[in-house]
């Protein structure tokens, strides 16, 4: 019998192309999103074998319940001051995002990216890490800088590429870098920071240091080859690193199904590598804090890496260049079953008698004012497009430690162009 004859009765193959549940105009019903009760998840010993994490990689670690109470074994039992500081930092990130988004719309800068709805992911992690642990963020963890006390004015200087910009106008807005705050230079190339974080952690271990590394990528970026390389290196050398996947359901216009979410969770990816995998309610600041603290202790005691999937929702567009109403239902952000991270932590503080509506309103007012003052300060250094903020002859700085002859020649060519243009630019002091 020929091969063709044998296959004659088989149905034709079909290619599965994932499709999100809701498109523009659709009514949203998120009841299929499994939300287990807060407090129901076990908390293993930080030295537990990676093979025992199956359940934790498929459920959601949750601490804050519907009544605003912190419950279960993952409750980090934080003091009210720490809770209020986390609430404050998340609200500050949101105020900052709103102001900078508007600044882009006003033409003061070319580009901005908000993290609305994902504030807990970076803020709670920053509170759980030691201040000298090294962070390798993606572009949506501005909360790390804010929680670590980086100056808002310096962030804005970078966004405006003005004369106060630490990065000398060389980087696209929001691609921050602060060695002092343990915040690695952000790259436009996705997930490249993943193996870099593992390498930093390996170096720390090789040197007998006590510092650990943490890195972040979106669920869409887990599809990059660097993700696989990083997890392989992390497990082979038991690197003291926390690998965070921020699953906000959307990679620009592609829903998480295009990163493989229809078949499994992102935390479950850890299991195949022999890495502890936790899946966490990313809008529950206490769950994020507890999971990060747990993973940090695991790393610091030489038990190896942890992958944490933060299950959350990208409330706004991907960036100022994106209009999410073109590809998803406008009803999604409000229907999201895990709510808003700021509202949930606020409700908790109120429920335990450590906060109230009036103080919250007052805090928001103060933060808006603080951001506004910082913006005025930053704008004294200039905004994008108003004049030439960077000295002309700085363009070639930093390609190499020392400038080789061909760059010196090209710099001279540029200075000659300036003369020909009749528009003198600023020079270095």
């Amino acid at each position: 019998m020929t091969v063709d004859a044998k296959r004659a009765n088989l149905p034709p193959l079909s290619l599965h192309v994932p499709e999100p549940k809701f498109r523009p105009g659709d009514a949203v019903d998120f009841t299929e999103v499994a939300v287990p009760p807060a407090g129901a998840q076990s908390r293993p010993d930080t030295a537990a074998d990676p093979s025992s994490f199956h359940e934790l990689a498929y459920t959601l670690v949750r601490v804050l319940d519907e009544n605003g109470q912190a419950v279960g074994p993952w409750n980090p039992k934080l003091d009210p001051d720490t809770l209020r500081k986390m609430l404050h930092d998340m609200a500050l990130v949101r105020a900052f995002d709103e102001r900078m988004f508007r600044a882009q719309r006003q033409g003061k800068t070319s580009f901005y990216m908000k993290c609305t709805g994902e504030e807990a992911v970076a803020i709670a992690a920053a509170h759980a890490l030691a201040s000298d642990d090294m962070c390798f963020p993606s572009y949506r963890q501005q909360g790390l800088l804010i929680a670590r006390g980086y100056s808002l004015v310096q962030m804005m200087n970078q966004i405006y590429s003005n004369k106060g910009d630490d990065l000398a106008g060389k980087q696209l807005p929001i691609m921050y870098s602060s060695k002092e705050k343990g915040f690695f230079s952000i790259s436009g190339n996705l997930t490249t920071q993943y193996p870099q974080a593992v390498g930093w952690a390996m170096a720390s271990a090789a040197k007998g240091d006590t510092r650990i590394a943490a890195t972040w990528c979106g669920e869409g970026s887990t599809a990059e080859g660097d993700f696989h390389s990083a997890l392989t290196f992390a497990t082979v050398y038991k690197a003291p690193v926390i690998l965070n996947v921020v699953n906000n359901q959307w990679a620009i216009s592609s829903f998480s199904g295009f990163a493989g979410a229809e078949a499994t969770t992102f935390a479950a990816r850890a299991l195949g590598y022999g890495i502890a995998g936790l899946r966490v309610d990313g809008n529950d600041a206490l769950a994020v804090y507890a999971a990060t603290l747990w993973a940090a202790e695991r790393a610091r005691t030489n038990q190896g890496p942890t992958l944490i999937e933060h299950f959350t929702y990208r409330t706004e567009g991907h960036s100022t260049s994106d209009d999410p109403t073109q590809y998803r239902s406008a009803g999604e952000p409000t229907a999201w079953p895990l709510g808003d991270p700021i509202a949930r932590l606020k409700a908790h503080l109120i429920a335990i008698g450590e906060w109230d509506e009036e103080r919250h309103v007052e805090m928001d007012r103060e933060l808006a004012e603080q951001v506004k003052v910082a913006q005025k300060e930053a704008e004294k250094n200039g905004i994008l497009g108003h004049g030439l903020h960077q000295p002309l002859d700085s363009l070639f700085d930093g390609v190499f430690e020392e400038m080789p002859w061909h760059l010196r020649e090209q710099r001279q060519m540029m200075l000659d162009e300036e003369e020909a243009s009749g528009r003198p630019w600023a020079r270095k002091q």
Partner: protein
Amino acid sequence: MSEAIVSETATGEAGAGTRMNMIQAINSALDVMMARDPDVIVMGEDVGYFGGVFRATAGLQAKHGKTRVFDTPITECGIVGVAIGMGAYGLRPVPEIQFADYIYPALDQLVSEAARLRYRSGGQFTAPLTIRSPYGGGIFGGQTHSQSPEGIFTHVSGVKTVIPSTPYDAKGLLIASIEDNDPVIFFEPKRIYNGPFNGHWDRPAENWSKHPGGEVPEGYYRVELGKAAIVRPGEALTVLAYGTMVHVVKATVEEMGIDAEIIDLRTLVPLDIETIEESVRKTGRCMVVHEATRTSGFGAELASLVQERCFYHLEAPVERVTGFDTPYPHSLEWAYFPGPVRIGQALKKILKD
């Protein structure tokens, strides 16, 4: 290379000289640097216990320990990405890519990350890596053990590209590369690991025992990056070459009795333009020789630079002798390789004008 040029370009406390092949010289450079600087680490596929598929890292793990010399998973983007992270921590990693043909999975980490880290971070973070990788053909390596991808890296701003042609230079240039605070791609011409190659594949292979470049000091010395070497002074024309081709050209011009000035570039970026200009202005003729494919190869950059800077001194068009614009073949290797016949024909042509 003449002894005079060796002593002119080297700096450091070299110590006694001994005979080494290029593998031993590279091994010695790594050993010297690991002993001098506790932040130097060596990593790559098979480089640890086994000592490398070419033996370049033999004995280093036993001497310096597993946390400084170690085997890695087979993932080139991982190797380079991890090395960048180690550099950010403060180490000085020397990762190996087993063959230059396999460096492509690491291109994103090299081009998008290592090359621009200093620039994009306003100097806050740097990538002081030296990526060692055997390159070039002439060993029946076929398509994926013979390539010369240097032109890909010379096109990337922020990376230095270094290619030695003798054991002496290999050690001195590798030490200088490791000490350099910028990322360096260090391509090792594997055809001449064991001896210089005159291009006559059908004659017995030579070894480094009689070549002056095989005399290598045991201790620390540097051959500075960005400085070419005049391998053979001459008047008739200037030949620009690097790696294996330095030896093929030298043998060919000597067989033909041509008084060529041969310049071993040693560092492609940053290029020693002064030595090139001075030579071409003197000879009036310039030939560029490399194994890599022709179109958009580094030879195009060299020819263009010579044309721009020495135009009124040129008595003939700049000639390029290169590999053909095909993947590197297995059985037809010696038809592909720019050997003595192709070089000889080009020499006749350029001298006829």
